[in-house]
């Protein structure tokens, strides 16, 4: 099956700093989604981005499908950005394969 690797595994930032999270995957995909898991365990859908670039407020994402990676950018981080960020990929109508996540802590 598809392998998904996320880096870094942990990240600590001061409020206001910027960060880049990376997701590498082992095979071609036509579905890539980024999620934020909040402290209550809920998965919040951030981006559906199998290719190209999208932006939503302070967050943006870029997927380079031909090189099998995706990047999630967080600018001007806030304490509410803390949590685990997951990348998940899939092919066709198949299931999503999740990475192990990046745990982000933003301190005031």
């Amino acid at each position, binding site marked *: 099956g598809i392998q998904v690797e996320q880096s870094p595994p942990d990240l600590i930032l001061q409020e206001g700093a910027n960060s880049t999270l990376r997701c590498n995957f082992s095979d071609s995909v036509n579905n890539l989604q980024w999620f934020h898991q909040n402290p209550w365990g809920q*998965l919040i859908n951030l981006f*559906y981005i*199998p290719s190209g670039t999208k932006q939503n407020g302070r967050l943006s994402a870029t997927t380079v499908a031909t090189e099998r990676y995706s990047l999630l950018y967080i600018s001007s981080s806030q304490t509410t950005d803390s949590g685990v960020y997951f990348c998940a990929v899939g092919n066709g109508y198949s*299931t999503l394969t999740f990475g192990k996540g990046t745990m982000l802590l933003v301190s005031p």
Partner: protein
Amino acid sequence: EPEVTQTPSHQVTQMGQEVILRCVPISNHLYFYWYRQILGQKVEFLVSFYNNEISEKSEIFDDQFSVERPDGSNFTLKIRSTKLEDSAMYFCASREVPGGNEQFFGPGTRLTVL
């Protein structure tokens, strides 16, 4: 904006008991999924369901598990005889068919088996 809903948000049960986790997918979606996440681990696929039958299942989805779409709106996951290791967060997801590949996730049910 339409969303996937799940009930209950938290379920506590005794080992050996049966539990049913409920999901209401987005109304025009036809492809449904269950995933689970053991505390501190990554999210894992359990089963997918389309056209009233299982289309794919993982090794985790053994005979203790079953899924059903009992009516036009609900999608359920049943665990017949819960074990301690079934304690996890269970997520339901749905996808529009045809349309895109994006899966929309519910908020999850936290199952605790004592």
